[in-house]
């Protein structure tokens, strides 16, 4: 019984991890339509940022790393956007292939820079311990996810930048002839989306391995969350992440880790039968 009850906060915390890794994609994928397979490697970059900062910040590296990783991953994203992706707007499926190439290269770069083995990132002492069945570091991730969601929501719905971002995504040519500097908006959007991956990377150092292939472990799940939630739909991503977290938690509790994954996939396929465009859909009258 206690086990079953424990699964509830566990499910929430799995959901929080899923949400955190997927949030950046609501920008790059949801808003810009770029299927960025290098998202996982931006997460990795965030994690290595925390690793490097240990020299200066010791055990508090995780905290210090949050803004730094945002910048580092964001800049990487910006460079990617400027050099490559901007030639592919409106062709999401091409960006998938392009960024996959980038992800391979980045993995190899990490391997050359930091070595193939995992590195150690010590978690802050004040994150040791737990609140009931919820470890402090999981709680930290949960709070981080909540904080990010609020910040993103405000940005997307309450700021001029957010509106501009949506306008560019929905009608690039019209945005340009309406006086919007679409290039700048693209850069900013991609910067933020990639930066969020960096933040997720820092958080993941608390619970998982830090190595060159780190990103590959999360990328499929991250896309599933975004798809199940509905492209670019923040509330969709939140609900989908939590639902998948809980589903995963209980499915694994009653079966095993492998079957739980299969069950999650099966449920998503079944779910898309009822909601082919995810939880929340931006409908329009236009034919496709």
């Amino acid at each position, binding site marked *: 019984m*206690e*086990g079953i009850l*424990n*699964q509830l906060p*566990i499910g929430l*915390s*799995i959901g929080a*991890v899923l949400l955190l890794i997927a949030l950046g994609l609501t920008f790059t994928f949801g808003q810009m339509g770029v299927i960025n397979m290098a998202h996982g490697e931006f997460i990795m970059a965030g994690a290595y940022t925390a690793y490097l900062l240990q020299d200066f910040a010791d055990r508090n590296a995780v905290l210090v790393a949050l803004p730094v990783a945002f910048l580092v991953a964001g800049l990487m994203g910006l460079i990617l956007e400027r050099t490559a992706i901007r030639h592919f707007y409106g062709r999401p499926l091409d960006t998938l292939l392009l960024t996959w190439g980038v992800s391979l290269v980045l*993995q*190899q770069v990490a*391997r050359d820079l930091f*070595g*193939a*083995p*995992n*590195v*150690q*990132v*010590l*978690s802050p002492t004040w*994150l*040791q*311990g*737990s609140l009931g*069945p919820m*470890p*402090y*570091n*999981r709680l930290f991730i949960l709070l981080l996810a909540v904080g990010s969601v609020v910040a993103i929501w405000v940005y997307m719905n309450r700021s001029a930048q957010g509106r501009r971002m949506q306008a560019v995504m929905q009608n690039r040519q019209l945005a340009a002839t309406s006086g919007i500097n679409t290039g700048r908006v693209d850069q900013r959007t991609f910067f933020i989306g990639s930066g969020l991956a960096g933040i997720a990377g820092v958080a993941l150092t*608390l*619970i*998982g*391995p*830090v*190595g*060159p*292939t*780190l990103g*590959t*472990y*999360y990328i499929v799940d991250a896309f599933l969350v975004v798809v199940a939630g509905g492209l670019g739909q923040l509330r969709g991503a939140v609900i989908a992440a939590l639902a998948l977290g809980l589903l*995963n*938690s209980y499915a*694994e*509790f009653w079966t*095993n*880790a*492998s079957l*739980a*994954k299969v069950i999650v996939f099966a449920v998503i396929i079944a779910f898309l039968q009822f909601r082919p465009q995810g939880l929340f859909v931006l409908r329009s009258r236009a034919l496709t």
Partner: protein
Amino acid sequence: GGEPTESTTGGGAAAGGDTIKVGLLHSLSGTMAISEVTVRDAELLAIEEINAAGGVLGKKLEPVVEDGASDWPTFAEKANKLISQDKVATVFGGWTSASRKAMLPVFERHKALLWYPVQYEGLESSPYIFYTGATTNQQIIPGLDYLKEQGKTKIFLVGSDYVFPRTANKIIKAYAAANGMTVLGEEYTPLGHTEYSTLTNKVVQAKPDAVFNTLNGDSNVAFFKQLKSAGVTAESMPVLSVSVAEEEVTGIGVDNIVGHPVAWNYYQTTENAANTKFVAAFKAKYGDAKVTSDPMEAGYNAVYLWAEAVKKAGTTEVEAVKKASGGIALERPEGLVTIDGETQHMYKTARIGIIQPDGLIKEVWNSGEPIKPDPYLKSYPWAGSLAS
């Protein structure tokens, strides 16, 4: 040697010119690179040392490195390439059992030699493979003996979902049944799995005395980090691992794993002259921060053992090397290693160690003498049904 081979299937006499080519086939990319790259490094060190000492049969060894890319069919392809294109005299390679199983038919078909350096699940004895890592009676069974001795009779099994952990756990269950231990649970996670909160909850709820851990690769990092934050310590519930060596400890974070036991045949701290030399040479070549570990040492040994057999045979020709190998005994960093000609496995000393705050492993128990390899566990009555 020295005669160019006339048959492509010989593989043995590939010693045209002044060098003898040997293949090194490990994953240099993909998930397994984390572990395998260092084994390759250790093998390169051995080759360098042997060459510095004059080589084999008067010829220098020339390594041909290929990437198995953590992908079993690629291992098979590259093995094929090393044998039929490069005509290497032998191959040192593999880590996961899956990669070995994929390469096995290639070596058997070409009658070429593979030296496999990692502990594994046993129940195999290919005439064209030399196994320089432990088989189950040299690692897993000693590990269980140790737990039993410590009074840990209720155990929980956690492993990656593939052949080594599954087979190992079958053996463990048979052992437990025969030795009055109870297995409270058995859980597998896919390779590369990183979410262990649910599994941790299950383990904690089951209240075992100890956990027997056959997770491989990155999963160990996530598992130990998350176990630690769930409040599990080495005192309250020791986790005995058979795939966590010095190399992995760094990535896991010493904090998270300190005090937990592991079972191997070699540690960086193992005391003998050969090891002092090995550790020093390795650090000199690859940097002071690097550690040595059991699979690296087994790979390092493999090169020396093969070279010894070639010297004894006076040729690199495969059948001759095989024949000459039986009984070869060398003082290695892990102690005396003897090739069992019958199974082509090694006599190895089992060692239980505890992870120290400095990230190294301190031996707390050993088998006293090298254990005869018994891949089919024929000498263990309780294992009767396993080897059928």
